[in-house]
């Protein structure tokens, strides 16, 4: 663009100069704007443009379409309540209003000049998922578009998105602000965060597309890459050919449907993690799943599943030693918190005897010294550790504890001797 700026400037200057030397008009039209228009200004090109397939006008410059799809499984999950949803008094009522949403924007860098041009929301109606897509037919129709969005995105409904917390919800809020309106989604569950727990260590990426392939086993035919979405929309604005947008609509629709399936699958996994671990058709990070369950607002309700899961990993000899050690350490902590020192010691003992891991040795030594009152046993455990390749912090800890136990033993000998 920089290259032909010179030519442009030539043109601009000539234009400017010819205006400046036109004496009468300069006086008559000091603002040099277009002649004032009366009445509402129509959205440019909207009248001439045919609606995209399946869409109909919702307002001047706003197109919409609805696709319904049978969703008995989803209905079941929502009816019985999902582990993924926040625990609140009115949770059941809110769960009934659950909305899966996704937005397409004119740019990915955000900021005041990036507009939402396609908004989609999936609402459960009895046993079907009703997916509605709203298209901004031209940039100037944004106020009408937002009117329609406000109706379909009530502020107090419960929203589910994938990466919507950092991006989409923010964009939506910005668009309303830019039009002097305040609108924000108050209850929002972003599946990205639990998904990262479950799959970050298992998959190369945690994008929705990757989860679709690896977790949901869905293959999309000729899907449009997200990066091409804005260009498609600008092409549509220029040419008014809705065909350019068809791949965008399809991509966007599939994103919302996949989101609902991902919701079902994640709910299943987190509800009965042990069963899913045993079936092993969808690999996931069991230790991180337990971490998520234990940090759940209703952790007390989930503790049993978490401990069961950790126990299964700990005792599964086919699993990697690192994973078993992590599971055991976390399980030990659970036992200690629940005031079950003997169970904790058992876990550590098992781990210690299988792996001789220094971190486990420290935990076992603590249990022996403080609960079993057996400093000699603790010392024995610590002295048997192989410190090679052990992280610095752990080595220091072992060294410190060993010295302390040695002093304790020497004092004891002195008293008795």
């Amino acid at each position, binding site marked *: 663009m920089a290259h032909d700026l010179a030519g442009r400037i030539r043109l*601009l200057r000539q234009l400017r100069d010819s205006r400046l030397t036109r004496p009468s008009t300069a006086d008559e039209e000091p603002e040099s704007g277009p002649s004032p228009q009366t009445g509402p200004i129509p959205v440019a090109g909207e009248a001439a443009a045919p609606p995209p397939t399946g869409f109909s006008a919702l307002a001047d410059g706003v197109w919409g379409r609805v696709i319904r799809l049978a969703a008995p499984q989803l209905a079941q999950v929502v009816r019985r309540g999902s582990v993924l949803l926040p625990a609140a008094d009115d949770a059941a009522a809110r769960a009934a209003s659950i909305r899966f949403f996704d937005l397409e924007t004119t740019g990915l860098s955000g900021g005041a000049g990036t507009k939402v041009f396609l908004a989609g929301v999936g609402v459960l109606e009895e046993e079907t998922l009703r997916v509605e897509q709203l298209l901004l037919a031209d940039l*100037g129709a944004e106020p009408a578009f937002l009117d329609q969005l406000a109706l379909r995105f009530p502020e107090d409904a419960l929203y589910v998105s994938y990466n919507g917390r950092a991006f989409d919800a923010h964009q939506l809020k910005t668009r309303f602000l830019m039009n002097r309106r305040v609108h924000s989604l108050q209850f929002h569950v972003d599946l990205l965060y639990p998904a990262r727990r479950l799959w970050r260590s298992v998959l190369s990426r945690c994008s929705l597309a990757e989860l679709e392939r690896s977790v949901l086993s869905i293959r999309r035919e000729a899907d449009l890459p997200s990066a091409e979405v804005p*260009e498609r929309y600008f092409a549509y604005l220029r040419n008014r050919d809705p065909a350019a947008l068809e791949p965008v609509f399809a991509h966007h629709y599939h994103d919302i449907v996949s989101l609902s399936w991902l919701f079902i699958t994640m709910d299943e996994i987190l509800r009965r993690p042990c069963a899913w671990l045993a079936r092993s058709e969808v690999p996931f990070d069991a230790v991180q799943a337990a971490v998520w369950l234990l940090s759940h607002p209703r952790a007390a309700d989930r503790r049993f599943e978490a401990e069961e899961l950790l126990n299964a990993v700990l005792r599964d000899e086919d699993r990697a030693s690192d994973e078993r050690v992590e599971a055991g350490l976390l399980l030990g902590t659970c036992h200690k918190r629940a005031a079950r020192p003997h169970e904790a010691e058992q876990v550590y003992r098992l781990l210690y005897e299988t792996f001789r891991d220094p971190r486990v040795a420290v935990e076992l030594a603590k249990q022996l010294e403080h609960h079993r009152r057996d400093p000699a046993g603790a010392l024995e455990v610590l002295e048997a550790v192989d410190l090679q390749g052990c992280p610095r912090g752990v080595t220091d800890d072992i060294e410190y504890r060993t010295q302390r136990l040695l002093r304790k033993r020497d004092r004891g000998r002195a008293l008795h001797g």
Partner: protein
Amino acid sequence: MSAVERVLAELKNDPVFAANVSQWQEIPAREGTYAPLPSDLHPRLRATLEAGGVRQLYNHQADSYRAVRSGRDVVVVTPTASGKTLSYNLAILQELLHRPEARALYLFPTKALSQDQQAGLNLAVEGGELGVKVATYDGDTPDSVRASARETGQIIISNPDMLHSGILPNHPKWIKFLGNLAFVVIDEIHTYRGVFGSHMTNVVRRLRRITEFYGADPTFICCSATIGNPRELAERIIGRNVELIDNNGAPSGAKHLILYNPPFVDRVQGIRKGVVQEARALTLRFLKAGVKTIVFARSRLRTELIAAYIRRSLENVYTDHGRINVEAYRGGYLPSERRAIERGLRDGTVQGVVSTNALELGIDIGGLDAAVLAGFPGSISSSWQQAGRAGRTRNLSVAVLVASSSPLDQYMVKHPHYFLGRAPEQGFVDPDNLHILISHLRCAVFELPMKPEERYAPQSELYLQHLEEEGTVRLSAGMYHWSDRSYPAESVSLRSATADNVVIVDSTNGEYSVIGETDRPSAKEVLFDNAIYIHRGEQYVVTELDLENRKCLVERTDVNYYTEALVKRDIKVLHEDETRHAGGSRLVLGDILVRTQVAKFKKIRFQSHENVGYGEVSVPEEEMHTRALTIVFDPDTRAGGALRELDPAMRVPAVVRIGTLVKNVAPVFLLCEATDLRAAERLKDPHFGQPCLYIYDGYPGGIGLAEAFAGQLEPILAAALSLVRDCECSEGCPSCVGPRDPQEEIDGNPKEAVSAFLAAWLSVSDADAEPAQAQDG
């Protein structure tokens, strides 16, 4: 007797030094003029001031308090160390104490300055427990504190670049701040001139659009150093009338100002001792006498050279280098390096610093006693700023201008009345430069859709139509909307012609660490393969300039020379806009295309500065479309006639020399750098068919320098003539028309020819040569 007094007495009694002094001016100490603390001052604010020892105000502080309290926009003209910050803090803190929801934005031209400012404010705020929340928001602010700065900061300290690329494009995040914005402080407004000022004017236009959108109308408080037209400049930048407050009431200590012209080495060729060596010697004298000294050098290269020479002179392992620590300081250093040097100057661990004009602004570096200006800094207002860095306390201080042999320097030392008597230069901006305006218009539409009739700038509708053709904006429902996926502020740099910078990477021993950056066009001239790049006194050789990836690899080296590019230029006239007959010549204003090519470089030996070899350079040529004033020497004009009076063999050399002269003298009349303006001569110009001299703007699209030059042509030529006449050399020297070039093979005396040519052109007789008086502001 203080150290400064001792060293001044010693210099006065040193006949060798005194012989080269062209002016020794004692500026007497000044008594302050005071006003009582305002009676309506909030009790807590009063208590804070009194606890800090402030029981009365300087006149200008009281006046700006009153003006700002009554909602007027002001520009306060403040010399160094005149209590500038209080002149705006007072009214703002007063408002914030009464109305805690109000907000203030402080803009400083550099990041370094804003950090210093926050330190000062925090002190006042915490000390007095005023409970006013101050936050810095710039490129170094960690993400984790940004949100709380936006939400709770009552005073946000930032810079124009951050406002431009971070705040305005994301204004919905700033709704609380911008909707309550009551004050905008623009400090050091004199730095916003030329390109930077033209950008700044547009950033302020955009800020005002957004605040208006949120229903706020902030008062603007500008501070300026002494320049010829502070009020006019401030009014251009903020787009409203301002009240000028220039009754400085601050006292100041006595200052000795010395204009020093280094002695001749070769009087016939007009060669004087070099400014680098003379500055080094003088600085050593100061430092050894225990006088804390700042040296200002004109270029980054010279900064490094002078610092290295001084260090070498002090080198002694037994005395720990005389326990004198000297640092170099310039742009291109990493922020942490600069902060460390500033700290060293404040806490006294650094006794001497050699800096580019980067330290000219109000960064707090504590009290220095002496300033050595190694070469005239290019403008009188800069000279005073630099001289003012010595003597921030009420003590005696000294500033020495060491003249280089450049014509401008020689003009200044030989015409001290210019330096001392004249109102400093005027700052001007051209916010409607096409490149600048279009860039900011894109940003403005991104930030908020624009109605065609909105008066963003004169004729802005035309530019919007251009953007619509380009496809980046779209007219829909009577408004222009941003219709591109990009984030336009990202590709606009306020500081330079181009946004793309080349990063300089030290790859010595396979380590890769970034040591600095520079803009792409300069990279071609300083970072070509095999160039010597100097950073913090270390030499590096360029191993690979990778322009495509904006990266330059360098390795540490140790050689006895530095390098300088030889640049070739080619000019094509694109369009003639306007022809005038003035000053005895035909003047044509128009657009030109300049192609620049670096083909070779010179190796120059340190200390002796002799040429020790050449090298080849292969970098792609640079193209620039800009504005030019062409002086056409038609035979029927006085100038043309004067040229034809000359011996034909002398004509080219004479025109070349006049080009050199005017380019060097012009900065006295136009607040610009000598490098902002370029000159090129053609004996038979292919476009005009006559001998021509092109004077053109060094910035793409032009920032009005060519036009301004046209308006000042006669005083500039008159100053050029008096410079040639007053020069003591015989046949031309670097201080006037340039030394004789053996390759020109001309008989006769080129200096006399230039003198005669100019005199005939201006039709002044040899007898009544008067030094030119420029227009005062």
